[in-house]
């Protein structure tokens, strides 16, 4: 489902060219759970951005569901974001001015799903993550773990096939982190493809495959 071939990404700094990703070759099949590890500044987030169609690349070839990304229209990308890709962030990135329920239904609103149906989906998710009581609270009123649960609920509300998580447990206590990882594992068991970035060895092992990124290169693929 994801096929990266000889991907390069660089920024031009005045006259100098700084490579962030160098010759990335990676393919990920549906149903996989991949962990990406590596030191800070290695390019993990950048790679995830490219996979998630949020950022472009300079050289190479990227096929997503058998379509060439370089030629993808803006409209099609928006469609992928609505229906096929979900994001989870280290800093949760909930919208402060929206309640828990409103945050969760963000992508459903963009998809144009009717209110009744949206409410049903949101109720299911709240129930699943045991946060029914928090429905009308604002993000600032939740604990970090709870916020991340909302983040996950929002990411999977539109039932994406691909879930991208950038250090989802980075800001959490290890017990809360563990809970989040269990949720991800469960989702993977249900068939969702997951790619996560993590600095934690224990959590990395939830993945069935670990990729090490060092200075923009894939170090060893197991």
């Amino acid at each position, binding site marked *: 489902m994801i096929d990266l071939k000889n991907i390069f990404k660089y920024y031009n700094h005045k006259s100098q060219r700084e490579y962030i990703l160098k010759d990335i070759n990676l393919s990920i099949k549906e149903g996989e759970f991949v962990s990406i590890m590596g030191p800070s500044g290695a390019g993990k*987030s950048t790679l*995830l*951005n490219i996979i*998630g169609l*949020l*950022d472009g690349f300079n050289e190479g070839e990227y096929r997503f569901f058998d379509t060439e990304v370089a030629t993808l229209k*803006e*409209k099609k990308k*928006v*469609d992928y*974001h*609505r*229906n096929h*890709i979900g*994001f989870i*962030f*280290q*800093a949760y*990135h*909930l*919208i*402060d*001015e*929206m309640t828990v329920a*409103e945050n969760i239904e*963000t*992508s459903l*609103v*963009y*998809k*144009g799903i009717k209110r009744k149906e949206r409410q049903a989906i949101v109720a299911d998710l709240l129930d699943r993550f045991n946060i029914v009581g928090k429905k009308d609270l604002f993000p600032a009123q939740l604990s970090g773990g709870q916020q991340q649960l909302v983040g996950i609920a*929002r990411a999977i509300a*539109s039932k994406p096939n691909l879930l991208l998580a*950038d*250090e989802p447990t*980075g800001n959490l206590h290890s017990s809360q982190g563990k809970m989040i990882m269990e949720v991800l594992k469960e989702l993977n068991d249900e068939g969702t493809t997951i790619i996560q970035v993590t600095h934690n060895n224990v959590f990395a092992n939830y993945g069935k495959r670990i990729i090490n990124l060092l200075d923009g290169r894939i170090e060893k693929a197991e």
Partner: protein
Amino acid sequence: MITQYIKIAWRNLWRNKLSSSINIVGLAVGLGTGILAMLYSYNEMNYERCHNNANQLAKVITYGNFGAFRQLPTTFPQAAFDLPEQFPEIKNAVRVKRISNNQVVVFRGTEPILENNFLLTEANFFEMFTYTFSEGRYTGEANTIILSQSMASKYFGTQNPIGEVLKIEIFGNIFHLKLEAIYKDLPNNTLVNSPAIMSWSVAKTLFKERRGYSDTGFDVYCQMLPNYDIKKLNTKIVADYKPSTQLDDFHIALMPIKDFHLKSTFENNSANLYLLFIGGLIALLIAIFNYINQSTIQYSMRTQEVGIRLSNGGGRKDIFMQFMVDTFLTTSLAFGLSLMIISTVLPYFNQLLDTDISLNAGLSPKLIVIALFGLTVLLSGFYPAVVMSKVKASLLLKSMISPNLRKSRMRNVLTTVQFVFAILLLQIMIVSQRQGEYMFNSDVCGFNADNVIAINGYKWGDLNKIKTELLRNTSVEAVSWGQNMPAMHTNMTRSWNGPNNQRMANIFKCEPDFLNVFNIEIDKGRFYRRDNVADRSDGVVVNQLLVNALAWDDPIGKSLRVWGQKREVIGVVSNYMAAPPIFEETPLIIMPAGNQSQNLMILVNPNNLKDAHQHIELVLKQANPNYPINLMYYNEIADELAKTFISTATIVNAFVIVIIFNAFLSLFGLSHFIVERSKKQIGVKKVMGASVINVYWELSKSFVIRFVVAFAIITPLSYLFSVQYLSTFSRQLPLTADIFIQSGCMVLVMIALATGYKIIRTALENPVKALRYE
């Protein structure tokens, strides 16, 4: 989706109360100014729309050489007979006389009340102009009158007044007029607006010349056949119609009444219109600029939200829409506030400009208001929304996003432009205000009219007796009477320097003590005196300009032929400002007036005003109990006469204040934001030992630099502009550097005030708090 946008926009508004209120207040003031200006323009451009036949109506105007003027808005009465007879396109014409200058006295019971602008017309007037009668029936029979509704209720309250008789005095004639009908008040934007219309029989008593060519003080209106061609008709009239008068270069033409208000040269209405139209638009545009400036800053805090939305499937269009909704909400609130502002300001505005503008007068004004609202939403929202819809989603995944104030060229330019406007407007305002004061400073204009009361001089019999009576009270310091008051009136004549003279001189009549009332200097010789009969029958007083014009070395005793009579110069007065400032300085001739004249002028002691008023009223009441006493100070009359000038100046000042207020708001918002963003930095710097002054300078430096740039750009331009402006006056204010420095200081103070409070408060805060807070 839209409801969700509104909900979020509302929460954002509520959370950033300070910046939201800055945006709302700024836009409200801008919108209010814009809406008022547009409503005014609409009112001005729709003159005479209240008459069904307006397209076929025209007023006769007269061209010729009338001293200072080349055109008159009135004409001779014969035109009303000749024109329909000679030109088949003209199917109807009517003579109208307007009695202005408070010359009508109406008696409510025994109480005399001064009234203005009564009309005298013939019956066919109502075939041409549209009046709606609410009571009674108009016939135009001899000695009848009709009143507007507001006038009827002033004199008769709620009772049915039809058939009642009103006692009216005009020019010393008493009329008893029967009230025939009552008409609905006309809007202000028509030439024939009047509180009362009297039948033509009254004109027969008042005016000897109701035909012929010699009195050019009549309003003559013509009604043409539909689809006439005004240019062709006027060409024919000028070519074929020769009024039989001695004056050459004398002719008449028609001006469509719909054009009269704006296109005639008799008032500066179109200048006012342009000024308000352009000023209102600029004020609105500046408010919109500000909004754009402020909201792009605020939105830069929301790039993260945009990233989240994009990664959740939001399209660019959705983001654009969301931020447009945001602006829509802010603008709606501003709109509501602006409507409140307008309804508060409207009464003053209407009074100032002599209009009766209202927000709910028909469909078109409402459409204008709504269109302005829509336009404001679009113009203010578009740029920020586009900027936001272009935010890169990838920014989001960087683990630390701090939306910082990116250096924006757009914002720099906007701020500098605002400074430029503020400085320019202030400088113009200071120059015009100082010129106004300078001109009427007694050292410059040569007279002092403070504490001079003026009153109609014809109603009290022999004024010599009145003068003696008035001076019995010590609170009255000097009394005189005459035709003209300084800087207020003028009569021009050529008849003073031989038969072939082309040069105009200003001439008027007055009596002894005129110079004392106005504190005017006499340079040589003597002025008229009560006891010197010979001077008054054969002498004449002139000013220095006349002496220069005739190149006399020793003017006293020289002879001068005035109005065909030889007189001997007895005195020379200073070149005080005898005519209004719009006239060139001309030679002046002062003649004796006799027992009565237009204006009775009384200089009173300012420490004893109450006494003086009481005494004057007592004396005048005794002289004539049947005339209302209306004490007006020279300065009040001058303000009334200069009303259009003053209203123009007031409007300019209002625009300046609105624009500067907006600049102030935006600076306030900008500095607030900058300080909020740099709280941590300020904390760190203070820990490193920076003083409050250091911090203040660092944060406000960029504003000061932009101010200096703006000042350097605009001051030379505004200097040139001021020179141009001043060159239209005969007594010019010397342009000194302090005018420009003063305006600069004012803007600097504004900058310091707008930026200072927040910066200093933050700089004084305990740095540890700011650091912990982060």
